[in-house]
């Protein structure tokens, strides 16, 4: 039997403030994609009212919802950016 995947999903700026934490721990089944992680985050942190399609980064790159995630990946939710 394959083991579940656990991630500490990184949060920044308004997302971190809303969740009251700089990361949120979620567990998803093997073979999960970014969308599954997002669904798990919504359940784990209901106070974090995410937009319909929040931006996600996997290993420091923007990733679409259907991208598969693997053990050891660094996942982050990216609020609308405001550099400059």
């Amino acid at each position, binding site marked *: 039997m394959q083991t579940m995947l656990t991630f500490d999903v*990184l949060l920044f700026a*308004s997302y971190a403030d809303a969740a009251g934490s700089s990361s949120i721990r979620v567990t998803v089944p093997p073979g999960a994609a970014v969308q599954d992680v997002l669904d798990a985050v919504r359940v784990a942190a209901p106070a974090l009212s995410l937009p319909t399609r929040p931006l996600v*980064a996997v290993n*420091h*790159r923007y990733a679409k919802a259907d991208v598969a995630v693997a053990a050891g990946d660094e996942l982050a939710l990216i609020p609308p*950016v*405001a*550099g*400059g």
Partner: protein
Amino acid sequence: MRTALVGKPIDVAAIAAEVVSPEDGALSLFIGTVRNSNQGRAVDAIEYNVYAPMAEREMTALAHEAAAQFGTSHIVIEHRTGYVALGEASVAIAVAHPHRANAMDASRWIIEALKTRVPIWKLEHYTDGTREWVEHGQVPHA
């Protein structure tokens, strides 16, 4: 070509000197500064929150893309992190090229792309003591 996140005041003159070389006929320098108001509210300072490893990766990617598109590798981008006071430079972009049009176009392209792609957020500190994350709806595309 060099990009960096920096925790202390940006030395604009040093960046300009670093980027220009004898074959260049133009140096374009863009400096973004902290403004004293935003959407009618008086601002005291800005605090930048940065996802550092990804921001560094995206800034490097921007520099490489600009180099290919505008034909020069003489590019330096620096962005501040943490607390930045009124009037201080929050970002500086220097591009040198044999001709002015490419230098200016590259510098404009870089700042616009930086604002939509690089994971940096600003927390505005207002004069009335409140603070708020700026979210103008600059949404990068995956």
